[in-house]
């Protein structure tokens, strides 16, 4: 029977290598995919996965055993990614002001569609939308992933990312309004 996270953490604290192996095998895919969704770059996602786990293992002594492990792990991953975005962004990330693209539309988030090969690739809605999400500003993407993939509430997102609650709402609204407009073009909806 697979050991639960708590038992593995206890064994990690006792420096049992197998416990480290098991804990990482269990969560490395999840953390990599999460970082990849936030950052949309394979190499950066790998670096951030590494940084996340190193931080997690360094902080094992401070982890409270009576709390679930996965949200704690995710919190470390989100903090690591937010720090990364802040380091690589010229302007402060989370202002109450909109990101420079006040009237962002999906057309802005998509690459040129003149390429027929790309046009064929975009036949599938999911893929089309994923491409659009990947081209959203990173802050928007981070919030969209936390809301829709991780199922977190506005309040939880605000707490986990350190973004003010009002900004979470505004950014989410703008991001999804842009994606919604894109779908409208894709499906040729009458407005």
């Amino acid at each position, binding site marked *: 029977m697979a050991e639960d996270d708590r038992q593995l953490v206890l064994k990690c604290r006792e420096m049992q290598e197998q416990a480290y192996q098991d804990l990482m095998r269990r969560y490395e895919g999840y953390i990599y995919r999460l970082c990849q969704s936030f950052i949309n770059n394979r190499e950066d996602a790998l670096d951030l996965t590494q940084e996340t786990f190193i931080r997690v293992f*360094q902080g094992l002594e401070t982890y409270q055993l009576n709390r679930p492990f996965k949200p704690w792990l995710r919190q470390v991953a989100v903090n690591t990614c937010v720090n990364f975005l802040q380091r690589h962004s010229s302007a402060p990330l989370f202002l109450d002001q909109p990101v420079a693209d006040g009237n962002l539309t999906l057309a802005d988030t998509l690459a040129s569609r003149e390429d027929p090969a790309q046009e064929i690739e975009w036949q599938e809605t999911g893929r089309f939308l994923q491409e659009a999400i990947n081209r959203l500003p990173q802050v928007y993407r981070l919030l969209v992933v936390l809301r*829709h993939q991780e199922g977190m509430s506005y309040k939880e997102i605000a707490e986990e990312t350190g973004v003010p609650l009002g900004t979470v*709402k505004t950014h989410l609204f703008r991001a*999804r309004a842009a994606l919604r407009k894109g779908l409208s073009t894709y499906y040729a909806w009458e407005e």
Partner: protein
Amino acid sequence: MQCNQESLQMYLDGEMDAEARKTVELHLGQCRSCRQEIARLQLLWLELGQTNEVELPAELPYLRQQIIHQAMRSRQDNKSSEASYWDTQKLAWQPAILGASYFPGVALLSTVSRATGRQIPRLMSGTIALARRFVFPPQDKKGGNQ
């Protein structure tokens, strides 16, 4: 209620209290365009909820080994540095303790405590004897003989 995109998004996110939800639902009952809009948003929500199955990179197992090696080494370093901290403290305090032993009187402390220890039983027995004299005054031996 006016047609409001943001309210519709909050409604779908489940981020409204019961009263606000009721207001939106009443509005949806009366507004065809908002009903159409919420159906479109629901489609978007459905797509956004699909997990993005990104292929895992082949180097992940190698990375795992690296991370574990680094983590274990770092924990070992921490443990050894904790031990050496106390060793350092002991070494740092040694001269002070040695110096204190040269203060005049310090060396006498043990002698005093030993001496007092020996005297205490004698002191106590003397006190008890004195108290007995008051409580049970000694009888006049002469009178007793008469």
